[in-house]
């Protein structure tokens, strides 16, 4: 409980690295607690580590398949990741456990929508609002679905109005309501809603386009021309901003393309360099630069690049592990710190523990090394290397018999394997 509370504390202070470490600890101490697993998954999800979040939830649900909060959360992450078929399966599982759960029906509706099963989506969302009439998000989604068909424009208006009256007072809801009014030929109401959307967000591009249309139909040509002009200028600005934002990622993609074509690494290196110059927040660009320098044998430079990647995004365990590997020969203490941070951020990676074991072995901390190798085996029992390391280290702490068992496991796992 203490780790969990510390996690909350760190999270509240935006110290995510420490918070993640504490949540991992709390979860490893009690893997059956849905509170700890969900908190960990939640922070991983928040910190853009969605794959890890999914893994945590899947592991938890294997032990507790009837945990409704776990199922719902996993479903939500699948939706965010556009894995709608898996989201649908999760939503359906959740509804078997609680058919009266309006949120479950909402998730089911969103999953169907993602799979382009629009009629099923409407039915599920209707069920959600039947159970919870003031369910604003479900009303919004229904409004959007109904606004695609002239036969259901009335229902679209009804649901969007209910979304607003249920507390979802947002520019996009006003814009969508304005859009449907425009389609219905109710131009004054359309203008009213579109202007409300712009009050909330003056640089919102689309309402200006719709306003131009509404004004034109009301015979207000000057206002229509002004709205269209505003639309164009906002659009140009947005396009330029996007081009600037995309420059780094585009150059990064170019670098990756060159790498995958196994072209001259200098060209890929130049592209990655340009990508981080264009977008200094491109941690992946720094990571790739480190990778190329490492391959060239320039560990020092590679370490500098990976430090920059860490500076941009300190929550990626991989970066800390790469740093640890790069410092292994020159700065063992730094290497130890880095691999420990990697483990704090992701204690489930067997390689990290094995590497920690190696560093501790070098420092004659055989007890610590054995502990690390054992963790590695725990995470990946089929990897022969930690078993071999245990076989080598255990005699040093007087456990020769156990060492022999580890050696046998090692031979069993490597039997028939290519020595390469």
């Amino acid at each position, binding site marked *: 409980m203490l780790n969990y509370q510390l996690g909350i504390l760190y999270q509240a202070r935006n110290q995510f690295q420490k918070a993640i470490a504490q949540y991992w600890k709390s979860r490893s101490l009690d893997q059956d607690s849905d509170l700890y697993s969900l908190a960990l998954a939640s922070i991983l999800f928040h910190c853009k580590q969605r794959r890890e979040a999914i893994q945590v939830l899947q592991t938890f649900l294997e032990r507790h398949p009837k945990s409704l909060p776990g199922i719902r959360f996993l479903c939500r992450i699948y939706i965010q990741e556009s894995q*709608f078929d*898996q989201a649908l399966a999760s939503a359906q599982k959740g509804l078997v456990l609680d058919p009266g759960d309006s949120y479950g029906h909402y998730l089911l509706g969103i999953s169907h929508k993602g799979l382009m099963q629009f009629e099923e989506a409407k039915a599920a969302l209707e069920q959600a609002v039947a159970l919870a009439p003031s369910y604003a998000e479900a009303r919004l989604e229904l409004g959007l679905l109904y606004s*695609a*068909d*002239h036969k259901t424009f009335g229902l679209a208006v009804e649901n969007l109005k209910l979304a607003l009256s249920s507390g979802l007072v947002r520019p996009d809801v006003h814009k969508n309501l304005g859009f449907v009014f425009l389609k219905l030929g109710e131009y004054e109401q359309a203008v009213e809603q579109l202007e409300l959307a712009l009050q909330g967000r003056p640089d919102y591009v*689309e309402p200006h*386009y*719709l306003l131009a*249309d509404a004004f034109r139909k009301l015979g207000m040509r000057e206002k229509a021309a002004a709205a269209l002009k505003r639309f164009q200028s906002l659009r140009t600005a947005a396009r330029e901003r996007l081009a600037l934002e995309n420059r780094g990622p585009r150059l990064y993609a*170019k670098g990756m393309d060159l790498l995958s074509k196994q072209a001259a690494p200098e060209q890929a290196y130049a592209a990655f360099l340009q990508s981080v110059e264009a977008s200094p927040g491109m941690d992946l660009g720094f990571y790739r630069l480190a990778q190329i320098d490492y391959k060239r044998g320039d560990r020092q430079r590679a370490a500098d690049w990976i430090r920059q990647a860490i500076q941009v995004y300190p929550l990626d365990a991989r970066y800390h592990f790469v740093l640890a590997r790069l410092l292994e020969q020159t700065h063992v203490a730094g290497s130890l710190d880095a691999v420990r941070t990697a483990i704090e951020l992701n204690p489930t990676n067997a390689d990290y523990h094995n590497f920690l074991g190696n560093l501790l072995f070098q420092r004659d901390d055989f007890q610590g090394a054995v502990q690390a190798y054992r963790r590695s085996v725990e995470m990946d029992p089929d990897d022969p290397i930690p078993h071999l390391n245990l076989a080598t280290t255990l005699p040093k702490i007087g456990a020769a018999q156990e060492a022999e068992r580890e050696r046998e496991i090692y031979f069993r796992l490597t039997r028939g394997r290519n020595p390469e």
Partner: protein
Amino acid sequence: MRRRLSTAVLFPLLAVEAWALVESPNPGSSVTFQDVTEQAGIRFSHRNSPTPKRYAVATVGSGCGFIDFDKDGYQDILLINGGWTPGTDKNLPFDHSLYRNRGDGTFQEVTTQAGIEANQYYGMGVAVGDYDNDGFDDFFITNFAGPDLLYRNNGDGTFRNRSMAAGVGGDGRWSSSAAFFDFDNDGFLDLYVVGYTDHSLDKNNPICKHGPIVATCGPEAFNGVPDVLFRNHGDGTFAEVGQKARVAQFAGKGLGVAPLDYDRDGLVDIYVANDGVDNFLFRNQGDGSFSEVGLLTGTALDENGEPQAGMGVVAGDYDGDGLLDLAVTNLDLEYLALYKNMGDGFFEDMSSRAGVLAPSRPFVGFGLGLIDVDNDSDPDLVVANGHIMDNAAQLRAGASYRQPKLLLENVGGLYEDVTSERGEVLTVPQVSRGLAWADYDNDGDLDVLVSNCGGSPVLLRNEGGNENAWLQLKLVGKKSNRNGFGALVELKFGEKRLVSQVTSAGSYLSASDYRVHFGLGEYQGNVEITVYWPSGIRDHLRELQPRQIVVVEEGSTNHPATAAEARVPG
């Protein structure tokens, strides 16, 4: 419905031909489409040369076309082939195919006899038109990363490649759709060639990934290229006038093109469907130049003000108000955009209100026709679908590479999805791209040809469409271009008025039968036709009996145009 025979009527002032005496099928049966590809003898298979690198060109497919090259009154078929990509067998044949319509429902492959050269490039689209006004239709093939090809019809069943001599080979940019049209009304067909992107196999050829999965690059990975406009000198040569005409200033990512006189000023305008960027509407200013008015007219963007992934486009009067509207195919989760011409210089996106949006949203649309398949006197929508990603299902749950076609029936200006009721073949999932239409068997209803990417085309014979009455017109220009392209034809029967503009262009990479086809429903009486020629001449035909194919020669009704009449009344 009454069982009746189509009849040939000799109209005193006109050359009238009746090519078919066709007995209607069983009364009461509705329209269905039947796959007759095999029995028609079409054996073509498109090669797109897919590889794990997923080059963009391997997914855009190639087009198809109808052309009556031997002037026997039956529409022949031209099928465009793809080409080679790195990592595939360069020695495979990638030849296009020309099939001659025997007139008995079967076709004979005559590619070699007709002098069509072995394909050395990666074929894209086809445009059909009689550019030298000799009475025999020529065709133009667009290519990816190679010169475009103009084949002149020698009039003896053979063609000759005149690209170099005519000066229309282009600069090897990626050309997609093309259209013959007479933009300066000088009586000779000019040529509009749509440019896609600056991608080729040896430059700007990235490998795109969605996470770890290699996926076909979208248009955002490339820069757009301007379109090309060739002006016909009238002596068999063309001049590139894109800059002067102010169309080459705009670099779009064009895939589809439709000529139409949207403002009914007697000058043909051009609409270009662009992929992922604003669509263009080039208004013909009558002085040899165009003005781009897409955004101003409401045809550049979707109903929310966002650009869509324009693929194919077709023009037609879907709501019977006498004005030409536009339909544009787009990606899935976007929709088939139906822009209604309001007659005041503006268009309105009617997709949701006309019932087109919802049924089209799950599909990636390419070729399309706005054609009256059931002859009930309003144009229906036929759409060829197929995803651009061959690994679509891997990239997005619920998506599929192969998709069914879509048939939306026009019921008083509102569309209803009748795909599953109009022939099983429409529901068969395929990777469809080009779509062309023609009454290839001259039985009074419109049939459809669809090209499939990396597969065989399908010829869909319309069964039952001719239960309703119909009338077809083939225009022969004298002062205007020989094909009559750009002429507006207005048909009146009872209280109804139908309008159609003559063109072989539209859809996606494809060319269709340019004979004007009108469905007349259960109407049994005679009809009235007015032809507004690009030259300004107007021909007026009265007391025409339905169920026949009429040839109208320009000026044959001896109705000289006044200046006022040269402007078509809206």
